[in-house]
């Protein structure tokens, strides 16, 4: 079976939902398609981790368009895992308001198209078509961000679309310059691997220009500071399962495109690719860490944490040494699984309390223990407390930084992640264990707890439990195939 087949289930599901499936059937088709994609991604990742190539399945005509290596397989695996948990979570979360059939169909059709576009990014090897896939992620998710049709959601969706497309326009020019650089070097296949081969023949000036244009253009969509302004809005206003996709994996899959440039430009004189990664990375962590301290909306809290973690991943790449590359790839996995869990937890809190405001929520541990426990787990894991995976990734980046002798950058990195840790935990702690001023009315408490439990649908709880497994397990044990896959992904960065 060819690797392209992984695109079929979401495409088929979107078409079926558009034409005939309604309500529960649409939700079922979405879950089925996500599971099929997950199975294919796991199989592909296992083969690549074992050192085999999956490109051989393709006919020779496909090689100019499609290719899967370690890095692509890693992203495919993460997209499919989060698409699966989020599709399960959606069933209870989206349907709770008994929306009209049309609205549900728009949701699930967009959901599948969004997953389709995110799967296409790592799969496609031709850079301009990858750009198209990036555009499609914005366009297919726009209506998901605005799904609730409140003033705030519409504003967030609009900002998201305008700023992402503005960045994409700059990136498009970057990709055209990259193509021109390829031609100036005598041509060849315009694919990621073809570009790596052609590096010595290409004009360094054009490569530098293309790198900067794409870094700025796509960096906007990754949410790198100072182009991050839209991200906390879009990632907090969308329905929670969509936030999990946006924050957990969409940002990462766009970052993947930037990382694809690294083997090409890393050794080009004057490109300073590692320095750019370090500067933008540290800037993102630093600014996000301070913004984390003063948020008033807990979904925004996790959105800013995404900006922070995009910075962490980029810093790992920029700090140098193969160990840094490995740590960054590890951090991509850790961030994706943990952040999607955080948004599921945030969604559970929203269902239990009906508000997004941190100040309005106190004593969640008593009023809705399930949502409170999930929030504490997510908060600790994403803030980087041991023994969770994010801690291991950040610690590995720290060690790589020290080993390569970049003491100032490593010091700043440590300072910022510590601030971010207290930023996240301070808010979460108050929400879960804090005592509200008006509390202590004994007759009121049990009924609130009972209704909160009743309001958290089964599918949401199931998705939370499934999503929690890698969050807990990866902190203490990385399975050997996953380790091999991460190592294979790190090796594609051209150190």
């Amino acid at each position, binding site marked *: 079976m060819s690797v392209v087949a992984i695109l079929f289930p979401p495409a088929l599901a979107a078409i079926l939902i558009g034409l005939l499936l309604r309500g529960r059937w649409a939700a079922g088709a979405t879950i089925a398609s996500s599971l099929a994609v997950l199975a294919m991604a796991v199989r592909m990742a296992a083969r690549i981790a074992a050192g085999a190539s999956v490109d051989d399945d393709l006919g020779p005509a496909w090689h100019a368009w499609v290719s899967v290596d370690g890095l692509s397989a890693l992203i495919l695996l993460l997209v499919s895992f989060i698409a699966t948990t989020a599709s399960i979570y959606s069933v209870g979360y989206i349907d709770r308001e008994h929306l009209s059939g049309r609205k549900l169909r728009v949701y699930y059709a967009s959901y599948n198209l969004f997953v389709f576009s995110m799967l296409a990014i790592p799969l496609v090897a031709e850079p*301009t078509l990858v750009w198209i896939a990036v555009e499609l992620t914005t366009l297919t998710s726009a209506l998901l961000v605005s799904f609730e049709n409140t003033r705030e959601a519409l*504003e967030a969706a609009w*900002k998201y679309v305008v700023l992402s497309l*503005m960045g994409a326009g700059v990136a498009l*020019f970057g990709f055209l310059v990259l193509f021109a650089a390829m031609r100036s070097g005598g041509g060849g296949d315009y694919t990621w691997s073809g570009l790596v081969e052609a590096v010595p023949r290409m004009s360094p000036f054009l490569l530098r220009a293309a790198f900067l244009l794409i870094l700025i253009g796509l960096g906007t969509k990754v949410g790198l500071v100072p182009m991050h302004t839209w991200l906390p*809005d879009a990632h907090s206003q969308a329905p929670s399962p969509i936030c999990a996709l946006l924050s957990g994996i969409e940002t990462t899959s766009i970052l993947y495109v930037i990382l694809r440039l690294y083997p090409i430009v890393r050794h080009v004189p004057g490109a300073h690719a590692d320095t750019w990664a370090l500067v933008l990375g540290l800037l993102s962590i630093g600014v996000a860490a301070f913004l984390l301290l003063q948020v008033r909306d807990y979904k925004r809290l996790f959105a800013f944490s995404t900006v922070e973690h995009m910075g962490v991943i980029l810093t790992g790449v920029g700090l140098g040494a193969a160990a840094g590359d490995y740590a960054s790839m590890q951090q991509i996995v850790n961030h994706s699984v943990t952040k999607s869990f955080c948004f599921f937890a945030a969604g559970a809190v929203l269902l239990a309390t009906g508000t997004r405001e941190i100040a309005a929520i106190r004593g969640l541990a008593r009023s809705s223990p399930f949502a409170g426990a999930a929030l504490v787990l997510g908060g600790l894991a994403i803030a980087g407390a041991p023994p969770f995976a994010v801690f291991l990734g950040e610690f590995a980046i720290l060690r790589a930084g020290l080993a390569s002798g970049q003491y100032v950058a490593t010091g700043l990195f440590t300072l910022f992640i510590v601030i971010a840790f207290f930023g996240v935990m301070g808010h979460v702690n108050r929400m879960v264990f804090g005592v509200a001023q008006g509390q202590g009315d004994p007759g009121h408490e049990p009924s609130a707890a009972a209704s909160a439990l009743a309001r958290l649908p089964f599918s949401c709880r199931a998705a939370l439990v499934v999503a929690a497994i890698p969050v807990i397990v990866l902190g203490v044990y990385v399975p050997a195939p996953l380790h091999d896959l991460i190592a294979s992904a790190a090796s594609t960065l051209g150190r």
Partner: protein
Amino acid sequence: MTFELIDNLNALAAGLFLLTAFGIVAMRQARGCLQLFILQSLLLAASAALLGLRFGSSHLYGVALVNLISKPIVVPWLLRRTAPGEIYTRREIDQVLNIPTALLIALALAIGAYFLGIPLAEAVGPDARGPNVPIGIAALLLGAYTLTVRREAMSLLIGILAMENGAFFAGIAIAHDLAMLVELAIATDGLIIVFIMAVLVRAVEQHVGVTAVGELASLREGAAESLSPEERA
């Protein structure tokens, strides 16, 4: 036709292309913005056809044809079908900057684009020398600039499409043998942009009652303070 004549005609198209980009920055009427964008797309198609003639590239004829069909015909049709009629009739009264200031900054951007574009075109090779690269970059920057100073949905949509036009205007000179599949995909992408943004404007108009989407500004740090007591509960 001699190469010299073709080059002169292409320079004329490029000059007019830059003027339309300035026009989009300055134009207050939504409908005028759309018409300027259509004119700009026609000039892009003309330049692609001329360069196709110059380099004997049938591929560039394809680009010209795609642009000729998708932008002047399909985009307005799509807007009529999906966007609320409101957006045509809007006239922007209060802009972030007044028009002379906006144009002055736009002029500075265009000059900056020239200094960026010339070395870039030099590095690509003799084929790329000509007005396309600097003017394409200028139009790209002016499109981005339009996005930052405008508030009305239509101007923002046109700003995005104009950025893409700018990237392409430079692209036909530096990357004129891009696969046709890619060109078609990019043209389709432009149409999806129009569709999605039109649907969003319709939703904004229905639920908030305005089309000046840039004026929506309830989301910022500390906005939660402005929540009403009922929302806090």
